[in-house]
């Protein structure tokens, strides 16, 4: 028996993830101390871990690295996605501090699970092998299933968690069978080697069915129609801070992984998946927007809105080339700022009035708390796509990429949908500004962390809207390593 030669271990590209997971371990240890430490301290450690990971990610910009025999590919694409993920997670932690203080259990496990799931997301975006992709997806999802049911005394939260879990596990097994078939067709699970082995035989039945099953699994994670049924219930039932994480971080990670798999490993089947995703994109944005009009609960409304936004982003995936995925990356950045901000305002309002989630609860918010109303208004306007906010620029790049790639009709459907969407977003704004408040609501005083989170998100959407070019260029450049 030949002795086992340990392979060289390059920690460098793993550093951002290690910082996040290390912070998770530290949080667990702090929670175990015999003398209970303050919740704020635990949250601060979690936040420090995320900020540290963000800095480590930024420090590696332009220095792509592969580690563990191509299991981990930390190129600029993964780094860009990681910035989005770290930002979203950090915002969620800041918002959680006073949200949990009022509504929830005082446990360090909450923050540990947020960090575990963030680590899973970061690995998902950087996975260079389908096995790593599967494990990272599970790390992210298992933590989120538990977090969704955090308020376990409440039936709605527990049921949302169970629905999320069963449908999620169902979708994961489709994904896994897809991986098995792709492995069967190519004899490997490494993305680059799949691309090499699949070259020239795009119509291998194993490969085609494997691709289809893979898309089912991913379709669930990004909540595209017809695999979106879980989203409204989970968004509504889960604690709002967790909803923000599901809507931004997990979506960004899954989309990044989807793009990487499609553009590298399965680039030979591009005609197949482009047609399929064309249809999915069109249906997803239409269903999301049309159903959102009928919603009276703000969390459900934002859930359908986020489904519609996935439809927009799939336009970029369909468009392909370097412009398409680049536009999706940029959109993810704007979307993370906007959506996390909108859910942030919701967490702050919910804090003061137990159940402020119906649109009617926001009547007259402008009079009671002008700053929060203005913030929510700006986030909603950015979701509509009103210039000069970030949402407009993001949509512009997506539709432009589609037109340039010859998908004129898809761009038209997207524009029509954006107009449709304006109705339900503006309805909320009208409620806030033009209706009288029903009764005297409690005064809202956001904590320092919550206020800071909102301020960062606001600065983000204005900055990205006013000077988008440098960020969009970065996103375009980040896609380049995938296309080699």
């Amino acid at each position: 028996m030949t002795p086992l030669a340990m392979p060289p271990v390059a920690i460098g590209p793993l550093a951002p993830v290690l910082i996040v997971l290390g912070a998770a371990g530290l949080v667990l240890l702090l929670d175990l101390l015999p003398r209970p430490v303050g919740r704020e301290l635990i949250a601060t450690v979690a936040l420090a871990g995320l900020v540290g990971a963000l800095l480590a990610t930024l420090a590696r910009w332009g220095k792509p690295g592969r580690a563990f025999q191509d299991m981990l590919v930390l190129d600029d694409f993964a780094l860009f996605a990681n910035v989005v993920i770290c930002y979203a997670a950090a915002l969620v932690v800041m918002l959680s501090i006073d949200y949990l203080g009022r509504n929830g259990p005082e446990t360090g496990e909450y923050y540990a699970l947020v960090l575990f799931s963030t680590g899973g997301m970061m690995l998902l975006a950087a996975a260079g092998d389908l096995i790593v992709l599967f494990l990272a997806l599970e790390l992210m999802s298992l933590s989120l299933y538990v977090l969704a049911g955090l308020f376990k005394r409440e039936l709605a939260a527990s049921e949302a968690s169970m629905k999320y879990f069963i449908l999620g596990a169902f979708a994961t097994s489709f994904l896994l069978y897809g991986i098995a078939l792709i492995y069967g067709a190519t004899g490997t699970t490494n993305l680059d080697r799949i691309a090499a082995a699949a070259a020239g035989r795009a119509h291998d039945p194993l490969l085609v069915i494997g691709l289809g099953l893979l898309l089912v699994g991913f379709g669930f994670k990004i909540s595209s129609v017809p695999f979106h049924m879980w989203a409204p219930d989970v968004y509504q039932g889960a604690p709002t801070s967790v909803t923000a994480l599901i809507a931004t971080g997990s979506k960004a990670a899954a989309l990044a992984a989807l793009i990487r798999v499609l553009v590298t490993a399965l680039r030979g089947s591009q005609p197949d998946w482009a047609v399929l995703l064309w249809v999915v994109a069109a249906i997803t944005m239409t269903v999301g927007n049309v159903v959102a009009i009928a919603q009276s609960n703000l969390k459900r409304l934002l859930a359908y809105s986020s489904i519609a936004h996935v439809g927009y982003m799939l336009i970029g995936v369909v468009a392909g080339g370097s412009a398409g995925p680049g536009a999706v990356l940029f959109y993810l950045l704007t979307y993370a700022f906007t959506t996390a901000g909108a859910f942030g305002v919701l967490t702050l309002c919910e804090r003061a009035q137990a159940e402020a989630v119906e649109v009617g609860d926001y009547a007259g918010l402008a009079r009671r708390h002008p700053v929060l109303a203005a913030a929510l208004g700006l986030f909603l306007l950015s979701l509509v796509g009103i210039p000069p906010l970030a949402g407009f620029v993001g949509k512009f790049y997506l539709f432009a990429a589609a037109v340039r790639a010859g998908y004129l009709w898809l761009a038209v459907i997207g524009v029509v949908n954006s107009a449709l969407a304006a109705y339900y977003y503006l309805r909320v704004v009208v409620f806030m500004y033009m209706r009288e408040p029903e009764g005297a609501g409690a005064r809202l005083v956001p904590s320092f962390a919550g206020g800071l989170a909102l301020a960062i998100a606001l600065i983000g959407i204005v900055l990205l809207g006013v000077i988008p070019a440098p960020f969009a260029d970065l996103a375009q450049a980040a896609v380049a390593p995938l296309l080699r």
Partner: protein
Amino acid sequence: MTHAAFLVIAALAVASALGLVLRRNAIHGALFLVVNLGSVAALYLTLGAEFLAAVQVIVYAGAIMVLFVFAIMVLIPGKEETGLDPRRGWRLLALPVGALLALQLLLVVRAGVGPVAPAAAVPGGVEAVARLLFTRYLLPFELTSVLLLAAMVGVLLLARRRV
């Protein structure tokens, strides 16, 4: 001879899978699943994957199924799935699923007729698996430990009574 053995085990696997899906009683379903997992372990043996066969019996048929049976015993003493099925429409979905199955079968058998791989000495033993596990698959291996830790923390959070 080997074909006969394969057919017997395969029939057992399919029958037990059908038993899981068709029997109303959850406990019977769990026992059918144990049979299914066992027959798949036997198939692993015929494929030359001794290590996985052992792990399958210990982890799956052993640990995981005990958890299932435990949960079933705790939760439902006898009462389940009675009355009208309010989701009869859902059952219609089984039709396209059946179509998917037929399609898969057809394609897979066709794929099997294709180029046969070099039947070189298949590295299937424990040594080959271990070697790969600690060299090329080192990162996923470590990732698994994080995953198990996260699962443990999550279960603790859910199971604790106060909160």
